[in-house]
């Protein structure tokens, strides 16, 4: 089955969540490669690396509560990357918190396009595709 997104990136320190989310994304069949990074620092490193030029994630799921560099700090750093690099991805917050304050905070970044609460399911993936990649979205019953 042809996939719609070449690459999706998960930035989450919780391996249980990442495992589940990866599974769900695979079930949806909407992504080719799934890159999992368990820290903001690692994720930034990847994005700046040569490997990213070959396999660049169009969709990034970002958790907020992470030890070390948390989601907000990641966004600060991401903002410093090449503008070209920035516009080639959309970031969706994927977090436990549905705190309205956090939702507002996320809205301040132009490259954060959405805010979802865990867990990520294949159904949610379909919704996201339809909303953010309308041209690529395939209607799929999962």
């Amino acid at each position: 089955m042809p996939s719609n997104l070449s690459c999706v990136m998960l930035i989450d320190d919780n391996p249980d969540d990442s495992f589940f989310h990866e599974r769900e994304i695979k079930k949806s069949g909407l992504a080719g490669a799934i890159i999992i990074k368990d820290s903001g620092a690692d994720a930034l490193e990847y994005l700046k690396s040569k490997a990213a030029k070959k396999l660049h994630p169009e969709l990034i799921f970002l958790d907020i509560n992470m030890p070390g560099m948390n989601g907000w700090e990641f966004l600060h750093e991401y903002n410093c990357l090449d503008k070209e690099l920035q516009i080639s991805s959309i970031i969706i917050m994927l977090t436990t918190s549905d705190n309205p304050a956090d939702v507002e905070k996320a809205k301040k970044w132009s490259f954060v396009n959405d805010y979802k609460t865990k867990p990520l399911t294949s159904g949610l993936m379909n919704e996201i595709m339809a909303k953010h990649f309308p041209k690529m979205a395939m209607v799929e019953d999962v």
Partner: protein
Amino acid sequence: MSSEPLKYVSSPQDGGGMPPRQSTKKQTKAEELIAAYKVLAYEIEEKGKRAAELMIANTELAFQNGEKENRAAELIVANIELAFQNDEKGKRAVELMIANKELAFQNGEKENRAAELLIANKELAFQNEEKEKRAAELLIANKELVFQNEQRKKRAAELIVANKELVFQNEEKEKRAAELFIANKELEQFAYVASHDLQQPLRTVSNYMKVFEEDYVTKLDDNARKYLNTVNKATERMSILIKSLLDFSRLGQNRSLSYVDTKELINEVIADLDALIKSSGAVIEVSEMPSLKIYDSEMHQVFQNLICNAIRFCKKDTQPRIKIWAKLIVNEWKFSVGDNGIGIAPIYFDRVFDIFQRLNKDSESEGSGIGLATCKKIVQLHHGNIFLESIPEVGTIFHFTIPNLKHAK
């Protein structure tokens, strides 16, 4: 000369006296004649005396006349003088008359002045009386002023004490407020962290249950599936409870007052609950509702919860009928939501507002049991009160009061 009979005539020559009467007529007549001749002599003497006297007298008289003429001359002079004097007198008299008139006039004036002076004195006496009255009043007023000043000093002293007390109280209040703020922040943080950190492992359980089911569904028998179902329901319930707890702890955060038409608000709630209303066949009657300053989204939750409850706790095979109305009592609006549902026994009236309190078995109704606790917290945020009336098997009315704020504080 008297024709008296001679009694005794003695002459110096005789030497004595003659026998008196016993003479003859001739003697008598001679005697008589002698007597008469004596008398005549006497009389001539006398006359001579008299003449002499008269001569003297005449001389005197002449002298006197001379004198008289002198006197007369003098008198004339004197008369002239007198006339002159009289003239002068006349002039003086005229002058005197004028002077008298003038005097009379002056007297008249004096009397006028005297009269005026009298009036003036009366006036002065009156003024003095008034002055004395004023002085007396002033004395009283001064005493009063002294008293007032003393009072003021006392009040000022009291005020200083009261102000010190107030400053102290304010400091205490600020300390309490600061403590309260910290305590609230801690509580918020606790609630947030607790809920958030609880959600994570719960989610892991839930997720992996799904994974397990998906991967092993073929290998599961009926019992296994039943057990898994039970686990799923429990985790689902736990998730709802944690979310409710989190929402409850956040109630009122970032709230803001706005002027709201509560009828519009209720209509919005009814629109949101459209599916539930249609499926239950409930009828909702909304009376005239006020506009006032409230926390908009929070009050939305109150009506949503109350209406939801009214629909959910309905009697079997009875169309739920819900009435909503409001009444202004002094400076508070009393909102009421009444239903014809299963009612609540009075012994539970206090408990219904407790968090997670549910009076019905789990299976009979959905809900986290936090709806009324939420209503209570929100009503309290508005500085209002919430209470209820109910008769089991007849119905329930929930009342809550909200201060009537129309203007900006």
